[in-house]
């Protein structure tokens, strides 16, 4: 039993990878065998993720080294002090992201087992889903730059293939091509950055590079490359053009997880800014660049969302806009922490708000995309002009949509309010104009979702949807889990912030702690 617990971080990747490649084999035995298998595998990997996260929160950073007997042996004795081994470094920040991936990962598999029922090609679909989950776990957990690149590519390839999975007269393939091409270019930029750092510091290990970082000219070039690549992947505004296409065309369950995979890139962006270049870059400049990206994403995302007719495309633009809030929170955190005239607590609060918003966004956005998926599953269209009166027959879906919509608009007592309030309060003290823009965007979001709610669920029954049925039970359960969490996190925000977000925020700031955890105080 002990050996199992010691190797949990390894199992985190091993379980979904093994599951993915056995799925086509087990599909030969029939649909129900495969569905059970896929559910067991994602259930196990989610449990694994939650266990790892709880251990990290209890006992501090876990450093897991691959290919050694004693888990702590990071630097091989015969290597002359150069850590050449592949490691996973999981500190409270990573644990925070792992919890998000574990919850959403399980819900989307449960959902897609039911939503894919009538469709063909399920073997490949579930294989790719498990690969996507493995890729995202890897991106979150790894402590090695090249390893991050590999997992980034695994998740991008699986994600692009899933976006294009329902070819849909070539339109989905078009969206998938955009996503794949952009991810590849982003990945290559990232790899050049990795090469530049390796050339100077002879290591790929994040902690070692952070320890040796000197901020030469080449390092600044590498920083710009990392920043561009990761901002591209997380869908911040000047590079957001792929988001609406791929989010709208992917099957809904996949969209919910693509949100998490974008957030894994966002996490990596923060990791690069705070840990890899910790204390070296000019926090005010980088902070303001992040803030400007955030403001642009918020504003352009929401204004593009308002005229949309396709409900998923509309939600995708809102996802861009919500990413802006996270960037704003963390950017203000970075800039305020370095400022001498503002107190540290403002920076910490902004950082906490930004991070808490990541978790809340994953939950309510996942919920919203899943409800949009139910509508498409039952009615066969995503066009808002053709939908109407669904509230009579789809009561639960309507309730879940309402919870998600109120949460994204930042209405109390849902979780979106809790994190947005933290962002408003701290941003207002940093620069009132930013807080005003954030509130205006929030109001526009509410306006847009009132419109969607009205045109989908309200009004008399339409003749073509006279006997439309409620979603199947597994889909309702998946949405229910997310909805309950949205409400719980909204009612008890302080407990969640204290238990999960505050450790994550302090781990992100404390780059010395990260280095010491890996190098053992050396």
């Amino acid at each position: 039993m002990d050996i199992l617990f010691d190797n949990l971080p390894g199992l985190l990747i091993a379980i979904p990878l093994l599951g993915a490649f056995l799925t086509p084999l087990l599909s030969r035995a029939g649909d129900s065998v495969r569905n059970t298998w896929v559910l067991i595998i994602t259930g196990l990997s989610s449990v694994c993720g939650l266990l790892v996260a709880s251990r990290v929160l209890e006992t501090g950073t876990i450093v897991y080294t691959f290919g050694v007997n004693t888990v702590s042996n990071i630097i091989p004795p015969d290597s002359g002090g150069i850590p050449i081994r592949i490691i996973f470094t999981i500190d409270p920040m990573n644990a925070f992201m792992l919890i998000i991936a574990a919850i959403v990962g399980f819900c989307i598999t449960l959902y897609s087992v039911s939503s894919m029922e009538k469709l063909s090609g399920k073997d490949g679909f579930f294989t790719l889903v498990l690969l996507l989950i493995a890729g995202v776990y890897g991106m979150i957990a790894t402590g090695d730059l090249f390893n991050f690149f590999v997992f980034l590519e695994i998740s991008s390839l699986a994600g692009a293939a899933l976006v294009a999975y329902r070819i849909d007269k070539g339109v989905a393939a078009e969206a998938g091509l955009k996503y794949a091409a952009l991810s590849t270019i982003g990945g290559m930029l990232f790899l050049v950055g990795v090469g530049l750092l390796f050339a100077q510091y002879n290591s790929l290990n994040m902690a070692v590079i952070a320890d040796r970082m000197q901020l030469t000219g080449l390092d600044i070039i590498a920083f710009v490359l990392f920043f561009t690549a990761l901002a591209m992947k997380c869908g911040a505004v000047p590079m957001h053009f792929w988001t609406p296409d791929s989010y709208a065309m992917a099957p809904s369950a996949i969209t919910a997880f693509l949100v998490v995979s974008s957030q894994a890139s966002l996490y990596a962006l923060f990791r690069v800014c705070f840990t890899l270049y910790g204390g070296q870059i000019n926090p005010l400049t980088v902070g303001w660049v992040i803030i400007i990206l955030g403001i642009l994403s918020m504003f352009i995302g929401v204004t593009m969302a308002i005229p949309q007719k396709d409900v998923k495309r509309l939600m995708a633009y809102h996802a861009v806009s919500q990413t802006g809030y996270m960037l704003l929170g963390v950017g203000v955190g970075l800039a305020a922490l370095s400022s001498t005239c503002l107190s540290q607590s403002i920076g910490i609060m902004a950082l906490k708000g930004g991070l808490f918003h990541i978790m809340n966004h994953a939950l309510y956005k996942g919920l919203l995309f899943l409800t949009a998926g139910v509508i498409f599953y039952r009615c066969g269209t995503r066009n808002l002009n053709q939908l109407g009166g669904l509230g009579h027959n789809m009561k639960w879906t309507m309730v879940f949509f309402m919870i998600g919509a109120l949460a994204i608009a930042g209405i109390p007592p849902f979780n979106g309010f809790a994190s947005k309030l933290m962002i408003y309060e701290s941003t207002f003290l940093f620069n009132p104009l930013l807080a005003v823009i954030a509130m205006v965007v929030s109001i526009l979001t509410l306006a847009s979702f009132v419109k969607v709610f009205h045109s989908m669920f309200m009004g008399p029954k339409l003749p073509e949807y006279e006997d439309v049925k409620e979603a199947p039970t597994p889909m309702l359960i998946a949405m229910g889990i997310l909805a309950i969490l949205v409400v719980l996190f909204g009612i008890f925000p302080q407990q969640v912030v204290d238990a999960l977000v505050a450790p994550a925020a302090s781990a992100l700031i404390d780059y010395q702690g990260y280095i010491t955890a890996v190098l053992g105080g050396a």
Partner: protein
Amino acid sequence: MIDNLPFLVVAITILLGLYAILLRKDLIKMIMGISLLESGVNLFLIALGYRWDSIAPIFTGAPSLAMVMPTVQALTLTSIVIGVATLALLLSMVMIIYRYYRTTDVREVTKLQG
């Protein structure tokens, strides 16, 4: 000066790749650009680890001379494998697009806009 020649080639390859991605109007040519970009990056990694007058990093019966850096070669190998997978995925998507749209011109592959 001659030491920096590989990096010059790297720069030229990457710039050619970016040129093809940004300015060509044909999907296949854009993918060729992505492929060029990948080759440029791979060459960059290999050139980083190379040392003049050194031998391949194989320890069995090796003379005691300086060896080239093996880590970047391992990275390049991984990156080549990933590149093949990406290229196959991209080209298969272009095939599907061509089957439905009868064109690979980016100006006409625009059903998703707005």
